[in-house]
């Protein structure tokens, strides 16, 4: 069975600092991977996705993520965070069927200090 682990429940960084949110997955084949962001009391917004090809994918708001098959990881990064980036970030995995089943990690709460 597939699984997604986000080892850091909470991350706090200062505004302007760089950011990495970690995501590890377990799946026998190459998965489809996603990062979603959830702002307070809102739904989920897609940040970026990886299907194949270049392991570094660019997303919205200058976020990027790097897929590593050898490490079974899909870490999210940003060079310089802004206070408005404070939110909950979810990593998710799909097995590419029309059941629409995404397996989500537990999420990482990001707090950006001004």
């Amino acid at each position, binding site marked *: 069975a597939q699984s997604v682990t986000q080892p850091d429940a909470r991350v706090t960084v200062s505004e302007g600092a760089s950011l990495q949110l970690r995501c590890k997955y377990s799946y026998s084949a190459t998965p489809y991977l996603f990062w979603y962001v959830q702002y307070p009391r809102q739904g989920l917004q897609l940040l970026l996705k990886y299907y194949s090809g270049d392991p570094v994918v660019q997303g919205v708001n200058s976020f990027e993520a790097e897929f590593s098959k050898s490490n079974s990881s899909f870490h999210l990064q940003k060079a310089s965070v802004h206070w408005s980036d404070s939110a909950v970030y979810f990593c998710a995995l799909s097995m590419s069927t*029309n059941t629409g089943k995404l397996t989500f990690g537990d999420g990482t709460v990001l707090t950006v200090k001004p």
Partner: protein
Amino acid sequence: AQTIHQWPVAEIKAVGSPLSLGCTIKGKSSPNLYWYWQATGGTLQQLFYSITVGQVESVVQLNLSASRPKDDQFILSTEKLLLSHSGFYLCAWGDWGLNTLYFGAGTRLSVL
């Protein structure tokens, strides 16, 4: 562009009372539709999915049911709410050409 609308935005209901949550998608014909549930402070869990009108598949048994009465509408309901039903309910549509889910703004449910 596709838009997904969920209603109501929030509900406070008593244990044992009925519930109906709705989701409508515009700008996408014959979408795949999904209901997800998020316990307070928790991760997301798929509840139902529907590929076509009148067909709904259950993924997790939570004493909830879902229906798809129209191509653009997905309804989540129960006749008797439990305390454990509290949480955040998210509707989503899937673009399987891109293998991506797009979520609505959600409905926050508090069962007291």
